[in-house]
């Protein structure tokens, strides 16, 4: 793997003898969408907070843009935009005032054109002058995304960015994240919505109990996995016998009078379908569960 945009080595943080992050090693490549997955308490937020120097690690090193975070904190933070957990703002200021204030702290002069572009991008053009106290949660979330990208950072960290967004907003955000990648940015995306990560991330880490259970390219990781395939048929028992006859090692079970479930590699699905149809069994539907979901549950034991 190339030298990463972010390189984390042996990172640890313990709270009252309970390890929140436990000797974590991580490499986040440049110009990718990196999914951060894990159940609650897995150590995702603690890791992201350490990456932003909000929390000091007990041990380990973090390198961003090839530089040590401890010694080049200001330089590194000027190239990062982030939303951590929930979008909090100065409620007594307008959206534009908040963005101006934060971009000034990022070393930028207030730029009305950039401001208008970013507000347009997140769909807040007509509410920018209103006080944030009057915003809905979804609007605050959009403003959160705006503040994360206003200073044109190279690395963007989005922790649960879809919370509070309506389906349209989620779709727009997904497109925005993909566009950011096309612009050459690196996006770290932490989310509980596994399908979201599966759709747009090209690399991921699954964390559990402070450790990285697995990390790497999404397609490489998921293609190694067998799928859980659900079939709707007129005769599940006969279908089960036929599949077992041809592929004895496949795990298979009937789950209702019309449904059958088996675990098989993706490329075998069409073969199974062909055998069943040729045996006179009617197949009404074949679909498989999200791969990442199964993979995640298998790894985290949840």
């Amino acid at each position, binding site marked *: 793997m190339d030298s990463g945009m972010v390189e984390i080595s042996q990172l640890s943080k313990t709270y009252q003898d309970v390890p929140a992050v436990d000797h974590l090693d991580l490499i986040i490549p440049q110009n990718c969408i990196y999914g951060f997955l894990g159940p609650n308490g897995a150590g995702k937020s603690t890791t992201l*907070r350490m990456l*932003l*120097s*909000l*929390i*000091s690690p007990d041990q380990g090193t973090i390198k961003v843009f090839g530089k040590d975070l401890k010694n080049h*904190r*200001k*330089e*590194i*933070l*000027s190239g*990062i935009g*982030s939303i*951590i*957990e*929930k979008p*909090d*703002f*100065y*409620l*007594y*200021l307008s959206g534009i*005032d908040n963005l101006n*204030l*934060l971009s*000034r*702290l*990022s*070393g930028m002069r207030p730029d009305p054109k950039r401001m208008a572009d970013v507000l347009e991008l997140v769909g807040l053009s007509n509410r920018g002058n209103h006080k944030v106290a009057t915003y809905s949660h979804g609007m605050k979330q959009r403003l959160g995304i705006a*503040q994360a990208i206003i200073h044109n950072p190279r690395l963007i960290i989005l922790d649960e960015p879809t919370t509070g967004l309506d389906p349209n907003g989620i779709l727009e955000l997904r497109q925005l994240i993909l566009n950011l990648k096309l612009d050459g940015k690196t996006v770290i995306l932490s989310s509980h919505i596994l399908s979201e990560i599966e759709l747009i991330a090209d690399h991921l880490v699954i964390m559990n109990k402070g450790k990285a259970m697995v990390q790497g390219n999404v397609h490489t990781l998921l293609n190694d996995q067998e799928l859980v395939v659900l079939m709707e048929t007129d005769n599940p028992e006969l279908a089960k016998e036929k599949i077992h006859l041809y592929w004895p090692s496949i795990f298979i079970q009937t789950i209702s009078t019309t449904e059958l479930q088996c675990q098989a590699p993706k490329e075998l699905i069409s073969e199974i379908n062909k055998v069943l149809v040729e045996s006179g069994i009617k197949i009404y539907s074949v679909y498989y569960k999200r791969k990442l979901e199964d993979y995640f549950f298998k790894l985290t034991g949840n």
Partner: protein
Amino acid sequence: MMYALIRTELYKIAKRPRSYIGFVAILLIVFIIEFALFIDGASYIEFIFQQLESFLSIEGKVLNGYLVCFIILQTLIIQMPLLVALVTGDVISGEAANGTLRLLLTRPVSRTEVVMAKYIAGSFYVLLLLLLLGALALGGSLLLFGEGDLIILKSETIIVLKSNDVLWRFYAAFGIAFLSLSVVSSFSLMLSCFTDNSIGPIILTMAVIVIFTIIGSFDLPLFDHIKPFLFTSYMIVWRNMFDQPVDWGIMQTSILILILHIILFLGVSIYYFNRKDIHT
């Protein structure tokens, strides 16, 4: 970056409704005192000086702008620190409670710069409060009551200061008041670093000042040993500017102790804040 941070902090202070409570309170208190003394001041002064008439003959205009300003300062000295704590007591804890501290600290600013910017902005707020107080209490009183010699009754002495010898003393008194209130500001800022609770440091600052002031006002031998260690003991030295002659030794020591307190409180704030994990 420091300039941008200070500007940001001042902007936030200016935009918060709470910041104006202090200005309104000063406006009201000064107006009420000046109005009351303007209407009924002569009989008030007559009552105070009644007991002195047997051995002292007083001529001229006793109730003048300088005396009214002195009375106002005496009255406001307890309230001013409370008004300052209201704004500076939650500059860090309030942001921690609201989650905006996270926003601030993920920008390329050092934590030391954040603490210093908040202190400087708080000091600027204190300065504005004192300028308003000076304009209303000194300027307003001189306009309403005119000039005159300042007669002050201390516990065992009467001090008479010629009118042409008073103004500079007020300027110096306001300067010392600024230093004293800066101690309060740095103290509340320090408490604000220790917690993520917005209101706690404000209440704690007020409680400490009230308790220390009460201890300082009692002439008990036990308290006499404690008083030198209370910063509030040095916050009232502005009164010594109206002694004749001024004891510059006491003034210098007190000013030095006040400055040392500011350095101590800021030092603790910076040390702690730089090591604090931000979980909110």
